[in-house]
């Protein structure tokens, strides 16, 4: 294949990766930014989203688009509710202590993963895309659904940004992130904000998973890669920075797509990890993060 089409294919693949990664990493970034909790179970909320999407589409049947739309609404709500319960039962009781919550979320990771194995099983199960349109380019064919994932993710990111910067909820969240004690002194119900943010973070991961599941499949181990990549993105972009998360996701996704296509996927991972090391050494707060006070 010639260089031009090859690069186009690489860029498209990279954009799909970026789109899903941005949503997942944003969830992780929000939780850390506002609550200072490193949520190691984030990838499992992603996995739960995909598994629930399979369950919902299977239960509904009929036209694939019907089940998919239902999954897009219901799966994140269930995952959000679960996250809320986990936050109330576990994280709150640990007083959001940074070390304790890391250990607790590692525990949650295993519990969720093994419950999925027990009740859903070890198989990878497919979800039918809402539409299967194949875009025919002169050099190769490409999935129309993949392009729509990029668009949907961009819309969702925009919506999250609007909520964070233009609404009262966003204001309250930002205030809590900036200084939770002062926020509490001003009458902001910090406990409820924490619960809401943790649920929102999990829901973003679940939405990303529902979007990706017609491309890949629902599998109980699928949360591991997104977790690792999300951490990379969040460290590079700066914890708690929406803009940084999106930029870093596009950077990592595109470099992954292009480097792994022209060289090797292993090299792409090496470079991403090297980038993380560089950022940690030269700009520990991340590209767009603000230095901690």
């Amino acid at each position, binding site marked *: 294949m010639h260089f031009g089409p090859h690069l186009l294919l690489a860029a498209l693949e990279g954009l799909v990766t970026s789109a899903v990664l941005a949503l997942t990493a944003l969830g992780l970034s929000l939780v850390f930014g506002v609550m200072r909790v490193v949520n190691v179970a984030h990838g499992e909320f992603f996995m739960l989203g995909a598994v629930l999407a399979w369950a919902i589409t299977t239960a509904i049947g009929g036209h694939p688009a019907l089940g998919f739309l239902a999954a897009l609404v219901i799966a994140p709500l269930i995952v959000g509710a679960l996250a809320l319960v986990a936050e109330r039962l576990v994280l709150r009781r640990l007083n959001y202590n940074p070390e304790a919550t890391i250990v607790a979320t590692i525990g949650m990771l295993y519990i969720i993963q093994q419950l999925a194995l027990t009740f859903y099983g070890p198989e990878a199960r*497919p979800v039918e895309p809402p539409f299967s349109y194949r875009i025919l380019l002169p050099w190769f064919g490409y999935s129309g659904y993949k392009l729509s994932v990029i668009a949907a993710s961009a819309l969702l990111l925009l919506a999250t940004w609007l909520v964070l910067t233009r609404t009262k909820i966003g204001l309250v969240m930002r205030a809590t992130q900036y200084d939770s004690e002062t926020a509490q002194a001003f009458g902001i119900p910090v406990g409820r904000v924490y619960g809401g943010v943790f649920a929102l973070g999990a829901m973003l991961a679940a939405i990303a998973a529902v979007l990706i599941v017609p491309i890949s499949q629902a599998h109980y181990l699928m949360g591991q890669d997104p977790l690792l990549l999300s951490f990379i993105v969040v460290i590079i972009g700066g914890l708690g920075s929406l803009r940084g998360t999106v930029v870093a996701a596009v950077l990592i996704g595109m470099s992954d797509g292009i480097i792994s296509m022209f060289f090797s*996927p292993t090299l792409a991972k090496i470079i991403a990890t090297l980038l993380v090391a560089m950022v940690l050494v030269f700009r520990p707060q991340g590209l767009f993060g603000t230095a901690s006070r």
Partner: protein
Amino acid sequence: MADRNGFFDLSKTALTRRTALKGLAAGAGLTVAPGFVRYSQAQSSAPIKIGFQSHRTGIGAAYGRWYEKTTAAAVKAINAAGGINGRQVEVIIEDDGTDPGRGAEVVGKFATQHKTDIVFGTLFSHVVIGSAPAAGENKMPYFVVSEGHHVASTKLNRYVFQPGITDVKSQIQSMAPWIAANAGKKVTQIFPDFAFGYDHRDYLPPALKAQGAEVIAQIAIPPTESSFTKYFPQIPAETEVIYHVMVGPAVLTFVKELGEFYGSNRPQLFGFIDSLEATDINSPGLEFLDGSHFWEGSPRYAQADDSEAQKAYRAAVGIDDNGAAVGDPKDVSTAAHMFGCWETLYVVKKAMEDAGYKGPEDRAKLVEATEALTAFAEGPEHPQGPKTFNGKIHQCFGIQNISKVEGGKLKVVHKTKIEDGLYEAEGDYTTQAL
């Protein structure tokens, strides 16, 4: 942390001399109690313990589940017919997480803790390779159902056997003539980047060359990969056949993306069903496979010419005509491989009977008795077909099926002969000390 409850305060929990004596007396009493020594007095009545190293979790979990079902069915049949040497068979399952390190630990656990007579049942090649040294060190006969060439390569040790399923080198060699004659001469290989894939990487090119065909590109894919479109530009345009072996949960994505990439204008496809074991061939996105060909060890779908033994085996394991669990059409089996568990257990039975096996002290005799076996006739004990066994390389050789995807089913279109897959032995395990 303050020790508020005094857990660590020895003055409160120290043993008195009297309690210590009581405990000792109770312990001594237990060991002489009649129930405790039941088996050591009457060895013939104790069950034969088979340690099953199962992929219950990890990427092999779907295989593990069906290997367990097949094993349970075989053990039930063996026990109903009187067991082995008049003793019942008991299976003890340990999960290896489809992980080589854990696999070695599991073998050690079977040897020292469960004290099983043999270890059995491993599929994934990296787990077999990782566990084999532990089996050798513990002098524990280790019967794998793995398909890889590692046993027959004689790179493992004298305690490792693969008597129930043909190895990849032999499979490839026996199918290469069909591929070259029916699919095409210019072949691009896509294989997973670990041991099992390397067998395909190393043995397909010479096998095809012998048939006047050639491998023009080899694409290795990391086993954890979840997206494949980025590899497809490496497939040369003149490719006539894509030979794909992709084990892992992402295989549906692989097929779907291949479909999107090529559309209806695709090269011929020849694959190992390994990729699609436990997966419904009618899953969304797999329409692209229609008309393509697969290797199958044992056919998933019931065939018109199935033997009575094959029918009885399918009924015993509980799979329907579509190769799915009876009563749950969505629960598709790993039919192409799991027959190996059934057949291996019958080989173990035969070898134990030949050796007059009584207990772990006879393990060396069991190894020699297994090595003395030469052939297994087709029948209820070997429903997949007849096999020969080479005791020097601990490997069996059977027939292979090439099936075509037609109307949402797999139909066997070619069966190889045992002779097609025989090759020069690369070594001799029997020269190793026991």
